[in-house]
């Protein structure tokens, strides 16, 4: 069996394990999703004007995504560090880049589900309207942004996992790094929603930025994850 094949199997095993834990505990559905929804409601209270809400809906969707992502990442590494599971995997000689890819994949699935919910909330609560092309663009934006966010989140989440005070450290480390995703994804989503008179075609260059970000952190993450979590 080639090392690539081995790595792929380990990565899928890790991802399946994370998603099974998630499926059985239902933290995402019962706690994180309501949290994300209440953020959207609170934004509406803070910006009490329908015209403004429609205009800034893309930015709010992505801000809510970032905040909920912090919770999800902490959760995904809490299950690892609670019983020293990550250390056990490393001691067992499991390739760290395979662990990285596996955990990123699981995170991608969870984030994508969250983002779909948030876009749905924006459509219902903020009165956003999309054309069919706009909808397709929104889906592509969600997918590319999710890959980048999941890779960065796994990388920095792993770093903060073994440490005391990680709850406060993760946002400080992660939010500056994901600023390009917030910028790119918000502009692309504005184009998809047509907010502020933006055209659908204006979104594609921003999606390219998101894709570049995703590729860079997928590659760098698989290299740097091992040294970062190795204790």
């Amino acid at each position, binding site marked *: 069996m080639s090392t690539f094949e081995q790595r792929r199997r380990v990565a899928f095993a890790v991802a399946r394990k994370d998603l099974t834990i998630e499926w059985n505990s239902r933290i995402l559905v019962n706690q994180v999703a309501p949290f994300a929804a209440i953020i959207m409601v609170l934004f509406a209270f803070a910006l009490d004007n329908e015209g403004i809400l429609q205009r800034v809906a893309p930015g709010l969707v992505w801000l809510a995504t970032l905040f909920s992502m912090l919770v999800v990442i902490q959760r995904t590494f809490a299950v690892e560090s609670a019983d020293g599971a990550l250390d056990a995997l490393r001691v067992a000689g499991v390739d760290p880049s395979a662990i990285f890819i596996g955990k990123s994949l699981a995170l991608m699935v969870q984030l994508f589900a969250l983002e779909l919910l948030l876009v749905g909330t924006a459509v219902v609560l903020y009165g956003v309207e999309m054309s069919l092309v706009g909808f397709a663009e929104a889906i592509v934006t969600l997918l590319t942004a999710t890959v980048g966010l999941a890779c960065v989140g796994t990388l920095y989440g792993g770093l903060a996992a073994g440490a*005391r005070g990680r709850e406060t450290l993760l946002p*400080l480390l992660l939010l500056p790094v994901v600023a390009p995703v917030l*910028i790119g994804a918000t*502009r692309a989503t504005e184009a998809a929603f047509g907010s502020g008179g933006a055209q659908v075609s204006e979104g594609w260059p921003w999606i390219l930025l998101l894709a570049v970000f995703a590729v*860079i952190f997928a590659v760098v993450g698989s290299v740097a994850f091992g*040294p970062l979590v190795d204790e």
Partner: protein
Amino acid sequence: MNSAVASPRGTGTRNTRILGILTIASMAFLALLGLVFSAEDRDQGSSVRIMYVHVPSIWVAYIAFGMTAACSAIYLSSRNRSLIWDRFAGAAGEIGVLFVAVSLVTGSLWGRLSWGTYWVWDARLTSTAFLFITYLGYLAVRRLGGTHRQRARRSAVLALLAILEIPLVHFSVRLWRSLHQEATVATGGTDVHMDGLMLFSLFFGLISFTLLFLWLVIHRQRSLALEDAMENRGLDAAIEARREEAVS
């Protein structure tokens, strides 16, 4: 380094004392140049004097972060992984954060005087703010605890990630700004004509701040070495005390 660890009285050696005296003298001369000898600006008046602190501060910050990255790379790639590289990286990181803060504060004061506002959402300013936050995170990771080797490897990897992150942030912030408004600061400086003494004062500021940086970074590295040595010794003493307890 070993002599510094052995000496109980401080982190100074003969060479650093000479460097220190040079630094203080050139700082004093810079203050004279900036506040007395150099002329007022035709448009900005005396507020232009902030430049002699503002520009050298960000210059030092760039040198410091460059040094953090270089020392981190050396630490990770060298075979014996000497902790001195880690301490130099950490010392430079701390000083870099300090000087970014100085240049942000002086910059916003200067901005208030010459453009009437403390902050504009210009690409350069925004990226600098990100630089500041990123290295605050780096310093926080250095204080996470664990053994010195763990700290060294974690923070070295993080410092190299920061080198990757900063151009990405800068690039995307520039894209973001270019769609909204033209940068007001970055383009404003190109056709500015400076008279000879002003230019000399600025240049002299760069040199004396570089001296200051070197002086600080050497001393900070030595005090970090002392801290590490103290932690090691504390651990040894604790183990020793525990053994005696067990025997008696």
